[in-house]
């Protein structure tokens, strides 16, 4: 589960209250565009220490969480 790590980075980036971020929140709702998502992934790479090659579209926080879990195996 990387929800907490993702939520923290999203909160830092957007300035929104971390308690308002839910697994089902979409990046669009949170004011994060697709290029922001790429930057967000890089911050996550630094934070959790794994390389993430995003090769599919992720729409929600949960999508991203699952994607990272699948890559980490």
């Amino acid at each position, binding site marked *: 589960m990387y929800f907490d790590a993702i939520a923290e980075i999203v909160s830092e980036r957007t300035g929104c209250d971390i308690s308002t971020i839910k697994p089902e929140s979409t990046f669009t709702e949170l004011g994060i565009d697709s*290029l922001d998502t*790429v*930057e967000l992934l*890089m911050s996550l790479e630094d934070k959790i220490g794994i390389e993430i090659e995003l090769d599919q579209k992720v729409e929600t926080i949960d999508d991203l969480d699952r994607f990272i879990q699948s890559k980490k195996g």
Partner: protein
Amino acid sequence: MEIRGKTAVVTGGSRGIGRAIALRLASEGANIAIISSGSSDAAEKTALECQGSFGVKAGAYTLDVSDFSASKETVAKIKSELGSATILVNNAGITRDGLAAMTSESDFDAVIGTNLKGAFNMVRHMLGIFIRERQGCIVNISSVSGIIGNAGQCSYSASKAGLIGLTKSLAKELAPRGIRCNAVAPGFIKTDMTSGLDLERIEKAVPLGRLGSPEEVADAAVFLIKADYITGEVVRVDGGIAI
């Protein structure tokens, strides 16, 4: 973009236009990664010349840019040896000229693979660095063949026209991050690639009456790297042949 102190990657940088661009960037104070596909001798020689003449760091790397995963490895190697590169010149190019009716599938694939997919591969693996560094500049070396077409060059002109599309899309996509992407479209330039052609006939066809030099193409590439308000542009360096 200020060139001094940056690291630049030049594909196809061992000879011809790529070599001229590598030397020019080195002369302006950039560290240089020279990528070449074949024997590393020429690339090593160019790297040594960059170091010796201009006191910058330079390295030679052997890579077939059409290989996606190998490109990734080379980009990582360059980063560890020369630092984060924020200038990319996609110059690697090959020709397999012939009438469309006589062009083999493998020749067509090879040209698209090196000239077009190779540029994408390098961009794909360097974008992470650009985004992290919050700066980056890409120059794709296209060709007038990609603008006006050329009988007997269907694969080459398709790949070079593709590079222009790649350039414009990347320019739009990356502009919000301050990353620029432009192209240079050379005409007939004095290099190994044009050495087998009928030069007298070409000189008659070029309005300025002569072939260009690799250094004249390098001038345009360096201009575009420095021009902070220009993105998505294609600059012809062709003596007027595509007017």
